[in-house]
């Protein structure tokens, strides 16, 4: 059964089919989901749970990408700072206002984590990797949901 492939803990055969990063992403996400389910009661708001699940998705994305990528570093920073109850950041990350940016470039900067801090060329590179990771995460979530529903 497909759901068996996501039983973490043991790297069974199905898991070996995934690449290392995908496996990392899947295990991290599933553990986070389990934690959310355990800690949330029927009285907790659904919006809160939705937010937590969404944050778990982004966290597992950033965790699987590690610190290799600028976007994952920025994402981890954002997640950790939120966990610290929004302390005011001492250093405002170098977000040099880029001159000569098209409107589209500005929109892209807002969408990609860590966008404001890079030049256009690096922004495109990070966007490509971010999209790759996002599609993997979405596929993972869809698969988990399908296996739950079946």
């Amino acid at each position: 059964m497909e759901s068996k492939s996501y039983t973490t803990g043991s790297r069974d055969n199905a898991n070996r089919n995934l690449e290392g990063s995908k496996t990392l992403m899947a295990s991290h996400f599933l553990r986070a989901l389990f934690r959310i389910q355990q800690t949330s009661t029927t009285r907790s708001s659904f919006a809160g749970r939705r937010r937590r699940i969404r944050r778990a998705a982004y966290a597992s994305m950033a965790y699987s990408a590690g610190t290799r990528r600028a976007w994952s570093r920025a994402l981890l920073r954002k997640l950790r700072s939120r966990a610290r109850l929004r302390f005011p950041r001492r250093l405002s990350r170098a977000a040099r206002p880029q001159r000569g940016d098209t409107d589209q470039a500005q929109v892209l900067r807002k969408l990609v984590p860590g966008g404001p801090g890079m030049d256009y060329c690096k922004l495109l590179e990070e966007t490509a990797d971010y999209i790759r990771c996002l599609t993997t995460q979405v596929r993972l979530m869809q698969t988990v949901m399908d296996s739950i529903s079946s």
Partner: protein
Amino acid sequence: MQHGSGEVRGSMATSASAQMALHDDHGSQQIQNPGLHDDFFDQMLSGLPSAWPELGNPKSPWDASAAQKLFRIDLTGKPPDESQPEAATEGLRYASYDEATMLASRLPQSQGSGGSSPTGEAMMLQLNNRHILPVVVPLQAAVGGGVGESGLLPLPLTLGSGGAADPRIIVETPRDEMDGPYKSPDQNGGEELYSGLGGSIRAAQAATGQHFHHPQNHGGAAAPAGVGQGPAASASSGGGAPQQKQKVRARRGQATDPHSIAERLRRERIAERMKALQELVPNANKTDKASMLDEIIDYLKFLQLQVKVLSMSRLGGAAAVAPLVADISTEGAGARAGGDGAAVGNNDSLTATEHRVAKMMEEDMGSAMQYLQGKGLCLMPISLASAISSAACRPSAGGLVSAPPPPATSAAAAAESPSSSPSASALTVQSAAAADTTAPKR
């Protein structure tokens, strides 16, 4: 200059590394060019590192050194045999080593006939077919013509798609080579020579057609008389050849200052990234860069929206994550239904849940609704539930509905909360027929 072909760009990246590697070789083998070239080279060096992660084409060192060997043979009149041991000592990694020797052997044939294109073209075409020479450098500068001999004409050897950039590179290499033996202090003189060579190169290009970038060729306007003269360093447009060039040569009529070179480099890198993005994003057949960016932005927004929606629809499923994570052999086992009904398809858990809901409904409707929603369930009228189940052709649709004594007007029917997944909607029918005790569809 932007090249339409991604291969060119990709090859450019690889050639950059080749050129870097080559530079070391050059240093040992030829006299360093003074001043002007070094400045360009430094700029190239500073601009290149970011592109280097993609480098690593094992072919390139061979190409550079092989081409270098060819040129040197041409200039100094060494016998072609020397090319082989030298190439061997270079540690060529390229597989088709024989082609280098073939080229080397052919060079002397064309040496005497200054400016005879056919041999060069033949060699060029041959090498093109074999795709020996990868990219040419990000160096935009088009250097016209090869070393005065026709042997340089083979320089336009390039990969089919990467032709445009190669000619420039090839010309560049001979220039470097030429500077050594000829030691022309007069750059302008060299320029004339190169423009003359550019004319011959253009002739070859016209013959081959595809591989040469016409805008680059306009620079080589000098009289063909320049052909046959010694090579000299200068900028002009023309010819491709194995990348060996490490200096950027600006096109004729274009500023050779570092800013424009860096600009060009930057533009090429951006084009490279855009191409990579194009492969990731569906519906990426837009030729316009602006519309491509719009497409990318829309796709990114769509993906983020998908994450949001999937996290919403997972609320009910979150309860069932436990069996996944805990690696329990039988999913949805009735034993686990004690706390929270694990699998929705499980009959026992449903019945227990229904009882709980019924009790809660007697006390407080709101909390009952909340409890149901927490499980991803909702209340629906019996008629609707039967309509859904009958639509899916489930035999005993009414089983579930009639089982619990409905305290209120609307019976509590288990239905998966609306979600975007088609499997979830199928589940509503499935749960409606849960009384059937058929095994849940997996």
